[in-house]
């Protein structure tokens, strides 16, 4: 167990180093530096600025300076706005985290409930309806769903106000983020629930007269939830990337939108910083998921 955890943490660290290498050298591969703005800067000013941000040093040395700063919590300065990136990121991340957290909770809760219903009522109409719905949802890109929801509920029907600075309505963005993972979790729960229902210990429990409720909640659902746990890590990655388009469509000023705006603006330092930041979240989420998986079910041999 300990050996596995150490190995897994090692892999996570290596992954993060690889990500930092890719992002840093990718940033430097783009022609033009941070101070090549539309307004021509005089060579002297440029030289001073470059010296200040250590851009006059060789790229490899710059990488180590960048990493040192990063480990000290210094994310650098945006090319376009000149603002401190960490301040921009942390304020917008609060919104994204709230949005993503709600989407995560909703998708897990509804996914597990719907999946259990589908498994318990196999081949009856609720199961068929759920299967139809989940199949459709897994074929719908989040941006299509978000735009359709926005059009139908905000514009056509006018039931839900469009997101603005004063009125925050999380309902539609959360739905558009949560539906795909929810559909996935539903399918996952259904398969593993059916698997668990066919196990010998369930038959034994029924034979000795355990109530249906207890069989479902104590014997089947608990075991069926193990695969769901493994999906949480990838789901966080999905929600983060999904929130980039969803936040953009609903004009929510979260980190996802900041990321997309920085792409449109070709604000390289911002792109790199956000990539690193989100990548750290994803890698850590995957690490925790894997360790949790191993803790929940010690039978599983991952190596």
């Amino acid at each position, binding site marked *: 167990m300990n050996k596995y955890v150490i190995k897994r943490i090692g*892999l*996570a660290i*290596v*992954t993060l180093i*690889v*990500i930092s290498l*890719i*992002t840093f050298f*990718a*940033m430097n*591969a*783009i*022609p033009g530096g941070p101070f090549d703005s539309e307004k021509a800067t005089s060579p002297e000013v440029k030289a001073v600025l470059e010296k200040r941000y250590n851009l006059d040093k060789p790229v490899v040395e710059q990488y180590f300076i960048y990493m040192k700063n990063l480990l000290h919590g210094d994310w650098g300065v945006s090319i376009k706005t000149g603002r401190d990136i960490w301040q921009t990121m942390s304020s917008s991340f609060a919104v994204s985290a709230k949005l993503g957290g709600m989407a995560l909770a909703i998708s897990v809760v509804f996914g597990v409930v719907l999946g259990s219903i589908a498994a318990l009522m196999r081949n009856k109409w609720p199961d068929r309806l759920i299967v139809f719905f989940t*199949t*459709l949802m*897994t*074929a*719908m*890109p989040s*941006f*299509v769903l978000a*735009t*359709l929801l*926005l*059009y139908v509920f905000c*514009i056509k029907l006018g039931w839900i106000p469009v997101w603005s600075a004063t009125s925050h309505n999380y309902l539609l963005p959360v739905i558009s983020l949560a539906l795909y993972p929810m559909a996935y979790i539903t399918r996952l729960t259904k*398969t593993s629930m*059916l*698997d668990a229902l066919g196990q010998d210990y369930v038959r034994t429990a029924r034979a000795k007269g355990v109530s249906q409720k207890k069989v479902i909640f104590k014997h089947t659902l608990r075991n069926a939830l193990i695969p769901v746990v493994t999906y949480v890590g990838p789901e966080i*990655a999905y929600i*983060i*990337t999904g929130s*980039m*388009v969803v936040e953009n*469509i609903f004009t929510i000023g979260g980190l996802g939108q900041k*990321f*997309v705006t920085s*792409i*449109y603006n*070709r604000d390289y330092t911002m*792109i*790199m910083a956000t*990539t690193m930041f*989100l*990548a750290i979240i*994803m*890698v850590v989420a*995957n690490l925790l998921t894997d360790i949790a998986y191993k803790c929940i079910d010690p039978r599983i041999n991952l190596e």
Partner: protein
Amino acid sequence: MSNENGMPKKNVLSAQIDLKKFDFATEEEKKQQDVMSESTTFFKDSMRRLRKNPLAMGSIVVLAVILLVIIFAPKIVPYGYSEIITVDGVRDKTAKNLAPFTYSKMEQQYMDKGGKVFPHIFGTDEQCRDYFIRVVYGTRVSLSVGLFASIIVLIIGVIYGSISGYAGGKVDLIMMRIVDIIYSLPDLLMVILLSVVLGETLGTAIKGTVFAKLGSNMLSLFIVFGLLYWVGMARLVRGQILTIKQNDYVLASKAIGTPAHRIIRTHILPNCLSVIIISVALQIPSAIFTESYLSFLGLGVQAPMPSLGSLANAARDGLTSYPYKLIFPAVTIVLIVLAFNLLGDGLRDALDPKLKK
């Protein structure tokens, strides 16, 4: 010591057969031995199972219809994907944002005079271009991106996976550690980052070559797929090869001195074909998803070339007035992805019935 047949009397325990106890087979009984159906091969059998799956067959029909439309529609419809509509050689500025199957004022006048105008099946867009042909070309682009990306993934993944699995030992260990690291990279983030960087840097490098027509964004998309998405396939193939290479026929082949690459090609890979086919069938929709996502972020194909994602993105601007401009590309994406998903599921059930729950 002999009975009436003149044969020596049998020992009770003798296995000698008493012929008297047997009759000749009647004609009817002989018929039972006839082979009723031809013997099938593994693939024939799988295809038979696939044909019984209505969802998979429906998906094939849908995909076939879409393929026929995107192949033949540009030959029938007299508009180009970046062509601004002209009436009788004159630029038609009134043909802006037409609803499906309607005509602009100029076209109406021209038709009243007896001229013929091809109907705008999906209407027109904000730059007076026929929308149907744009959706058709968008589908072409999206489908070919999906297909080519899957082929790239297939080639790299299979070669890498088979070398790793067949070589084993230290080589396998190192190769799989590399796969582990790439596998744990947050894929879409890296795709976005690399698309931005490659899109910027490739633009000047490919100027004037064949690739310029493809656009730097499209090219970077393929490169990114080639760099990141092959790991899943490589893992799959390696896992298969690890089990298959234990078989005696591989040992026999090794014993007669067959070189490793031929053993992999003729003895091992055909046995993992079903797994590879399923994986490719499911890779295509995921590549289409990724492409449409990137196009939506403005990192996909270069304008005026459309893709389904960029069409959906462009449709957001006039969403309140022209919702159909979103509906057409969106429905096409959903149909294609759904059809490939269902076909992939069907193929999995057909090729690997053991997996079916």
